[in-house]
């Protein structure tokens, strides 16, 4: 089995494309953080954060008096004011422009890393079919499921690598922009029942990346299944990235249906649980993990079954 894994990794890392994806990820992370930094520079006014927060509170309160302000955004304003008042009362500075704030922003780039991994892993099985090499690969003293599992493992390893590349790049870049400091500042958030919570910032950032990794794993597993079933990397890339975007876009609009909580895309983003905001009221972290586990098993088992039984006929 170890030799199979060596082979699959050789096929990934002796390809220029894989290195372009890794370098691309580094560039995207760097550029994004630089742009974010550039956009927020000069907006903070005073060097004392208390003055800025006080100003923000006053501006928000003025906004609330405005009769033309859309009603559905009132709630957001209200929360922002509450958070800022808490900051002043408990001496908790804002984290947006600290290294950890930047790291949190960069965590959203995991979507890009996911797309990159899908591009690499969708070709893993489909490429063997379109290149005809599948015929030489399967006439070896291994069971088909062993070969497939080695491919899947190497795809997961590659996604893990991209996750690490993103995190490390973001860490270095954020540190360079904001200094490697401010670790003791807690992260503040409002739970759904309106209470303000403090949490350890480092732990929050690490958990966010971890939960993003779960989302990545689900998408990659789905892409792997589509790649095996359709034997076409183009279909696998288009379908899984398409589903990812449609799924995450539609998810917030179907929450009122009773079956919604069983939908993959309602559960796939676990980061909501970190700030006490489940996708649908009443859902819990363990419920979402259970749902994801079921989907994961279905994806993997159907991939194995299809691959095991297929006649290699072209």
């Amino acid at each position, binding site marked *: 089995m170890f030799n199979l894994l060596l082979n699959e990794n050789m096929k990934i890392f*002796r390809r220029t494309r894989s290195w372009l994806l890794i370098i691309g990820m580094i560039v995207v992370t760097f550029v994004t953080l630089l742009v974010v930094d550039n956009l927020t520079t000069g907006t903070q006014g005073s060097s004392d954060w208390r003055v800025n927060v006080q100003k923000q509170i006053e501006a928000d309160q003025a906004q609330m008096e405005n009769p033309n302000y859309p009603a559905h955004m009132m709630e957001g304003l209200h929360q922002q004011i509450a958070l800022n008042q808490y900051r002043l009362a408990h001496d908790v500075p804002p984290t947006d422009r600290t290294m950890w704030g930047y790291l949190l922003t960069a965590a959203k780039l995991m979507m890009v890393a996911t797309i990159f991994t899908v591009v690499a892993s969708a070709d893993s099985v489909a490429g063997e079919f379109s290149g005809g090499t599948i015929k*030489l690969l399967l006439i*070896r*003293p291994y069971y088909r499921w062993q070969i497939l599992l080695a491919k899947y493992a190497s795809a997961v390893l590659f996604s893990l690598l991209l996750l690490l590349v993103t995190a490390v790049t973001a860490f270095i870049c954020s540190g360079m922009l904001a200094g490697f400091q401010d670790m003791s500042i807690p992260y503040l958030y409002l739970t759904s029942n309106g209470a303000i919570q403090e949490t350890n910032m480092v732990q929050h950032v690490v958990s966010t990346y971890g939960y993003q990794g779960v989302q990545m794993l689900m998408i990659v597993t789905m892409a792997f299944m589509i790649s095996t079933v359709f034997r076409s990397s183009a279909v696998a890339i288009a379908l899984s990235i398409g589903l990812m975007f449609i799924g995450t876009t539609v998810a917030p609009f179907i929450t009122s249906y009773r079956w919604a909580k069983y939908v993959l895309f309602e559960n796939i983003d676990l980061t909501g649980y970190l700030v006490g905001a489940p996708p649908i009221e009443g859902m819990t972290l363990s419920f979402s993990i259970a749902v994801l586990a079921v989907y994961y098993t279905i994806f993997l088992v159907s991939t194995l079954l299809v691959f095991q039984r297929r006649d290699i006929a072209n």
Partner: protein
Amino acid sequence: MTPILQMNQVTKRIKNKTLVDGLTLSVQPGEVFGLLGPNGAGKTTAIRMMVGLMKMSEGDVLIEGASIATNFREAIVKVGAIVENPEMYKYLSGYRNLVHFARMMPDVSEERIREVVKLVGLEHRIHDKVRTYSLGMRQRLGVAQALLHRPRLLILDEPTNGLDPAGIRELRDYLRKLAREEGIAVVVSSHLLAEVQLMCDRVAIIQHGKLIDVQSVHAFLESRHLTQVEIEVDNIMSAVRLLEPADVVTDPESRTLKLQLEHEQIPATIDRLVRGAVRVYGVTKQTRTLEDKFLEITGGESVV
């Protein structure tokens, strides 16, 4: 002697279509065996079942006694094969491709990889990307890949595709040498009669998924000039006496006799009957030689 390859009633059905129908044959150690048939006759499907890429609907394939269906790993480890085109990883070098497949087989040393590379004459280009190889070079790399683990059965599907005449001769000599010296069995498929004649000891002719005939190339070459002739006469007994010592098959009911003749012997034979006062009502040439059979099957055009 136990055969290296034994196919028993191998059948492949997809929906209502029967692609391969009750194929039974065996290949002995040291033998180069040809599968001859027009394109679409089921040769490739048969080969895919031999190596377990396709599942059999019925029957079994045994490789030195191990079933490819129920004992896949033990059976396949004795097989080296190219199925259809020799497709390798184009983005890897030839050498990396061989390393890849060597890792999947037991006991293939780096030494062995070098040996095989030398054998197929790719030393100078082995570290280039396969993308830059000609079809002939890919074919050689395919053969190298199939030989790495010293298989007992070598299966080559249309191996001369893309080879020039010198390359074909080289491959032929090499296959014969392998079979003779190492006692391995080689199965070669082709739609070209001339090619199979040159390479193989025995040939199976396949059409519409069925085995038409298995014959040794030697006997086949001898028989190719003989034609079966059917002659209708009034008196069979005196005709047989006149034609002695020829091997004649008689059918008293239709008063015909059948015998194998070279084309040029036909007029003299009839002459002898007529002079012997036997009345000849008809002479029919029958196309029953293997070559004629093959020509019938292929429509003639693919025979070089």
